[in-house]
C-alpha cells in the first residue's frame, strides 16, 4: 500500500518533468528558421531596410495563423552592409551555421550573383524580390521580381507611344554594375528593332553612391535638344536623391524630358521633395496607390506594423513593389511547404511550381511551372505631389517572364527551366 503512492508520485513527477521538458525541446527543435539577407547599412540601406521589416511582418502574420506545418517560423536577420563579398559570407553563415531552410534577400544583382554560388553549392533556397536583368535561371533561386519583359520593355514601349510623349531619343543612365549594363544591352537591341539609331541612344554609368550629377544632367539637356528625349534610369540606391534634386534644380520637367526609373519606388521618394518631380515615371508590377481590397488590407497592415514596431518614419510608412514581392514570396513559400509537407529544398522546389497567391497588385499571381519566375502585370506610374504614383498605363493581365531575353543573341537556345550555372 505504501509503495503505490510513491509509484504514483514518481510517475506524476516524471510526467511533470517530461511535460515540462518535452514541449520545450519540441519547440526548440520544431521552429523553421528563415534567413533574411538585406543590407541594413551602406548605400543600399535606403531600399533594402524596408524589405527586412516587410519580411518580419509577413513572418509574424504567418506565425499568428499557426505557422507552417504547425511550426513557428524563426527569422534570422543578418546585415551584409551593401558589401558584395560580405553577402556571400553572410549567406554561407545562414546556410551552414544557422541552418536556415529558406532565405529571403538581396536587392542588387551584384549581391545576388555573389551569393548564387553559395546557394548552389550548399543546395539552399533563395527568394529574390527585386526586378532584375534576367540572364539567370538557377534551381536554387525563385525570382519574385520582374524580368526585363515584365518591366523594362513595356516601359520603353510606353515612352514610344503617343501618351508617353512619343520619344525619339533615349538617354540610358545607370549605376555601374551588372543589372544596368545588361538591361541597357537588352534595351539597345530592342530600340534598334524599333528603328532607333545608335546616334539617338546615349549610355552613361556612374559608380555606386555617386552624388554629383551636374555634368550628367547638363548632358541630358544637351542631348534633348536633338529631339524628344526620354531618360531611362537604372540608378540604384541613395544616388537617386542627388540625381532627382539636380534635375529639379536645373529646371528639367517631366513634360519636357520624362525620366522613367526602374529602381525608384515609393520608399526612395520619401527622402525627396516630389513637387518638382510630378509626372516623372516609374515602371513596376505594383504601386501602393493600386485600388483593390487586398491592397487596402496590405497597406493598412504595414502601416499598423510600422507604428507598432516604431520603425523610423513610421508615420509616413509606404509600401512598394519589392515589398509586395517579398510578401508574395514568403506566403508562396509557406504554401509550398504545406503542400510538400516538408521544408526540404528539393521537395519545396517541386511544390512551388504552379503556386498561386492573391497579391496586393490586384491579380492572382502564379509561379510558372518551369521557369521559377512569377507571372506579373506591368504598370507605369507617374509621380504625384504626395510622393505616390498614379498608374497611367498597365497590361491587361499578368505576363509570363522571359528570363532569357530574346533581344540578346544566343538566348533562343537556352532552356526555359532551371539549370545550375556551373
Amino acid at each position, binding site marked *: 500500500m505504501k509503495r503505490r503512492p510513491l509509484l504514483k508520485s514518481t510517475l506524476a513527477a516524471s510526467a511533470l518533468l517530461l511535460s515540462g521538458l518535452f514541449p520545450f525541446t519540441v519547440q526548440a527543435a520544431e521552429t523553421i528558421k528563415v534567413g533574411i539577407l538585406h543590407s541594413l547599412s551602406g548605400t543600399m540601406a*535606403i531600399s533594402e531596410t524596408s524589405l527586412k521589416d516587410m519580411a518580419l511582418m509577413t513572418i509574424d502574420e504567418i506565425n499568428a495563423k499557426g505557422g507552417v506545418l504547425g511550426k513557428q517560423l524563426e527569422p534570422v536577420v543578418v546585415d551584409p552592409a551593401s558589401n558584395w563579398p560580405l553577402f556571400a559570407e553572410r549567406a554561407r553563415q545562414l546556410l551552414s551555421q544557422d541552418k536556415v531552410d529558406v532565405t529571403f534577400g538581396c536587392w542588387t544583382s551584384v549581391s545576388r550573383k555573389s551569393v548564387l554560388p553559395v546557394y548552389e553549392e550548399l543546395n539552399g533556397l533563395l527568394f529574390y524580390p527585386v526586378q532584375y536583368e534576367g540572364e539567370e535561371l538557377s534551381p536554387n533561386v525563385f525570382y519574385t521580381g520582374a524580368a526585363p519583359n515584365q518591366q523594362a520593355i513595356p516601359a520603353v514601349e510606353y515612352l514610344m507611344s503617343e501618351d508617353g510623349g512619343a520619344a525619339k531619343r533615349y538617354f540610358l543612365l545607370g549605376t555601374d554594375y551588372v543589372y544596368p549594363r545588361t538591361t541597357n544591352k537588352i534595351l539597345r537591341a530592342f530600340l534598334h528593332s524599333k528603328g532607333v539609331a545608335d546616334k539617338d541612344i546615349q549610355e552613361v554609368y556612374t559608380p555606386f553612391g555617386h552624388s554629383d550629377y551636374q555634368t550628367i544632367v547638363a548632358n541630358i539637356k544637351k542631348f534633348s535638344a536633338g529631339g524628344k528625349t526620354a531618360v531611362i534610369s537604372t540608378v540604384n540606391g541613395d544616388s537617386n536623391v542627388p540625381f532627382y534634386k539636380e534635375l529639379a534644380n536645373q529646371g528639367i520637367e517631366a513634360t519636357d524630358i520624362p525620366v522613367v526609373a526602374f529602381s525608384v519606388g515609393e520608399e526612395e521618394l520619401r527622402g525627396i521633395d516630389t513637387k518638382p518631380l510630378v509626372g516623372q515615371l516609374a515602371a513596376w508590377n505594383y504601386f501602393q496607390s493600386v485600388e483593390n481590397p487586398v491592397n487596402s488590407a496590405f497597406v493598412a497592415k504595414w502601416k499598423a506594423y510600422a507604428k507598432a514596431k516604431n520603425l523610423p518614419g513610421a508615420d509616413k510608412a509606404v509600401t512598394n513593389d519589392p515589398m509586395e514581392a517579398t510578401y508574395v514570396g514568403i506566403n508562396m513559400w509557406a504554401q509550398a511547404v504545406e503542400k510538400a509537407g516538408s521544408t526540404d529544398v528539393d521537395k519545396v522546389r517541386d511544390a512551388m511550381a504552379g503556386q498561386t497567391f492573391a497579391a496586393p497588385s490586384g491579380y492572382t499571381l502564379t509561379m510558372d511551372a518551369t521557369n521559377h519566375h512569377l507571372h506579373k502585370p506591368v504598370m507605369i506610374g507617374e509621380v504625384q505631389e504626395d510622393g505616390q504614383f498614379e498608374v497611367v498605363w498597365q497590361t491587361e493581365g499578368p505576363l509570363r517572364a522571359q528570363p532569357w531575353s530574346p533581344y540578346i543573341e544566343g538566348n533562343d537556345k537556352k532552356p526555359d527551366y532551371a539549370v545550375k550555372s556551373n
Partner: protein
Amino acid sequence: MPTALYRLFLLLTLLLPLTGHAGDASDFVAASPSKQAKLLESWSAAPDAARLPLLEALQQGRLAADSGKNPFIEVNGLYQSAEGEFAPAEAPRKLRLNNRLRGLIGTAMASHQLLAEEPALRLAAARELQKRAKPAQLGLLDARVASETDAQVRTALTLALANLQLVDRDPAIRLAAVRLLGETGDPLARTRLETLLDPAVEDDAGVRTAAQTGLAQVKRKLLIGELLGQAFSGLSLGSILLLAALGLAITFGLLGVINMAHGEMLMLGAYATYMVQLLFQRFAPEAIALYPLVALPVAFFVTAAIGMALERTVIRHLYGRPLETLLATWGISLILIQLVRLLFGAQNVEVANPYWLSGGVQVLPNLVLPYNRIVIIGFALCVVVLTWLLLNKTRLGLNVRAVTQNRAMAACCGVPTGRVDMLAFGLGSGIAGLGGVALSQIGNVGPDLGQSYIIDSFLVVVLGGVGQLAGSVMAAFGLGIANKILEPQIGAVLGKILILGLIILFIQKRPQGLFALKGRVID
C-alpha cells in the same frame, strides 16, 4: 426609384450641352485622352479669356468630375461646380493627366496668357511659346505680334513665330525667320536650323545659306554656355572638395596628425544640421527656411568640442608617432560611425533644402546655375578667408604657426603648446563641421557620409602641399575642374580612376605637393 433617378440623370445630361455657354469644362471632362489633347490644341489656337480659370485649375490639378461627368473645380478642399449649379452627387474624383496633356495644357495656358494685362505675364507666355508653339497657333501669334504694345514681349513673340515660319510657303518669310533664329543661343534653334541644311527639306538656296551662317552663330553661343557650365560645375565640385578638405588641411597639414576620423567630423556636422532642422520643424516651423544659417554655428561648436575632447584624451598622447595616430584615429572613426548608427539608425536621414537653396537661375538658354551650388561656392570662399584671417591675423593663429614650425622654441617663449594644440585641433574639426553643413545640402546624410570624402580630402591636402592653406585651395579647385573636364569625355567611373592615377604620378615626381613650405618643416 432607380429608374426615376436614371431618367432625371438622363434628362440632366441631355440638358447639359444646351444650358448656357459652350461648356468647355464638361467637354473636357467627358472626352477621352486623345480627344482631350485635340480640345487643348484647338483652345490654344483660339484663346478665350473666360477659359483661363479652367486652364489654371487643370494646370494645378484641381479639375474633378463626379460619376455623371459633371466638372468641378476644387478650391481649398471644397468642390465647386465649374459650369451651372450642380452639387456633386458624391465626392468627385480628380482628373487624371499624363505628360502629353500636361505639355498641351502648358501651351494652352501660355496662349491664353498672351491676352493678359500685365506685360510680365505676356512675356513669360511668349517665352513658353518659343518652346512649345504648335503650327495651329500661327494665325494667333501673327495677330498678337501685330497688336503687341510692349517691345520686349514683341521680340519674344516674333521669335516664337519664327519657329513656326520655318515651314512657310514664302521663301522671304522663311529667310527672315532663319535670320532671327540664328541670333538666339537656343539649343532648340540648332536642331531646327540643322534640318534646313538638307536640300530635300529646304529648296531655296538663299535660305540654306542663311541657315548655315545662323547655325554657326548658334553653335558658338551654345559652346560658350557649355564651357561656362563646365567651369561652373568644376568650381562647384572644387568648392565641395575644399570644404571637405579644409579642416584636414589644419589637423593634418599644420598639426601633422594623420586624422582618419576627419570624415566623421564632416558627418557629425551634417547630422548637427539634421538635428537643427528637426528642432526648427518642431518649435519654429515658420522660420524653417533659416535653419541652415543656425546650423552653421551649432555644427561648428559641436564638432569643435568633439575634436578638442579627442585631442585631450587620445591624440595628444600620440604626437610624433604617426603609425599609432593613424590606427587610433581610424578606430575613433569606426566608433563614431557606429555611435551615429545606434543613435539615428543606419538609414540616411532627410535633410531638405530650404526654398532659397532649391531651383536655379537661367543665365543663358543652355545654362542654369542651381542656387545651392552658387551658395556653396560663396560659402567655401568665406570659410577660406576666415580661416586665413584667423591663422594670420590673430594671436591664436600666431601661436599655432609658432608651435607647428618649432615646438620647442615656441614653448621656451612661453606659448602654452598643449592648449594651442587642442585649440588648433578643435578649429580643424569645427571647420570640418561647417563643411558637413554644406555637404548636407547637396548629398545624402548617412553614417557613411565621411567615408566617401576622406580619400578626396587627403588627396587635396597631399596634392596641395602639407602645411599650406593656399595649396589646398588650389588643389581642390584644380581637382574639381580636372574632374569635370574629364567626366563628359570618358565617364564618371574612368574619370575618377584617371585622376587618381595622375595624382599618384604627380606625387612620385613631386612628393612635397604643389606648394612646399620653405625652410624648416614640421617635425
